[in-house]
């Protein structure tokens, strides 16, 4: 059975823990955590990932910049990216999608919503 590696970039430890909890319920998905965009980029430089989940509002480097950098990186330009956003921040969401994000999840996040998106993008039945 295929194994998948997923990078979660989120500055809020609470949200990160909730996303990791949701991903732990998808079989064969291994999670790496990063608390801002720069740490996320370091992880991306060190390993190959099958999926990236990132928050938009983060210190140091926000999610939009991260998505842009990921799409410029030959190794990860085709990797699906899920952005986490609030329902109100429509502009940010549209910008992220225009930059190449694959899907979005709105806060407050629900584990079934995360699981469904991850399975859809990783093509796990």
């Amino acid at each position, binding site marked *: 059975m295929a194994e998948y590696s997923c990078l979660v970039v989120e500055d*809020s430890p609470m949200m990160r*823990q*909730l996303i990791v909890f949701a991903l732990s319920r998808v079989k064969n998905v291994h999670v790496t955590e990063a608390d801002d965009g720069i740490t996320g980029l370091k992880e991306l430089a060190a390993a190959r990932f099958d999926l990236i989940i990132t928050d938009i509002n983060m210190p140091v480097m926000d999610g939009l910049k991260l998505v842009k950098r990921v799409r410029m990186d030959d190794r990860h330009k085709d990797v699906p990216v899920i952005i986490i956003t609030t329902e*109100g921040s429509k502009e940010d969401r549209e910008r992220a999608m225009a930059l190449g994000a694959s899907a979005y999840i709105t*806060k*407050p996040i629900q584990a079934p919503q995360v699981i469904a998106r991850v399975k859809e993008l990783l093509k796990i039945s």
Partner: protein
Amino acid sequence: MDEDNGDRRSRAPASDAPVDLRHEREDVLRTFLRKGIELTEDLISDNAALKRRVEGLEQENATLRRQVAHDDAMRELLSKIQQLEAERLSILSRSAELEDTTRQHEGRHEQIEAELNDLASLYVASQQLSGTLKPARVVQHICEMLEQLVGARRFVLYLVETGVTHALPVAHIGFDENLPRLALEGGAIADACLTGVDRIHEPDEVPEGGEPLAVIPLVMGDVCVAVIAVYELLEHKTEWATVDRELFHLLRRHGAIALIGATLYHDAPDARSVLQALASIPVQPKQPRRASEGSEVQKGDSS
């Protein structure tokens, strides 16, 4: 006289009979013969008609026999159809039962998923809240719980000053300006600080006088040490979820303890010094309780 005539006719040779008689006899004979022929022809005709009738009856009989055989087969088929129809209805009924059971299981599955999600949120919130001894981090976690888990867009965390006369805003989200110290002279926040009872409006209700949508006092025992005032939720959040009320309950009970614990630790020179208070608690020597003692106690209790 007739006998005499008859005798004479039979005895007299034809050639000797008078011509009239001979003709008459021939006529009679011809008539007789014709009648015989006609009778025979009638008999033949009747016979042929009877034969046809018999054949017709035989055919009819055969048809009726076939019909009877066909009816038997039909009855058998009808019986089979009825049986199959009964089986079909039974299968349909069973299928409907199974679909109903599946729907119930799906509903239960969704319910369990939702409960699991709620428990995960509560677990994460509780762990984060009690996982730090830095006051600023406790405040940050409380704000994250409200913002990320509940979906609050505009809220304030106040510390209640001794005497419950004023509340000091220590964190707020969604306000452009710095908030002033709040005099607890009346209103939902003052009531919550005094009574320790929370006040939660439905999200679609607009409280009068700019009062908060939800006021959650953070209490330690009977003392309210802080209070959360939620003024606005995220646009798409139209109702409180069950987990929101559980999170408020968690904040109400554990928020105060986390704030007090972290502040006490912050003021202490190191972790060991905080635990020095335990040294002053007199240790009571205790013998391990035997199982039989436990059961006797239980018996005594029940009697």
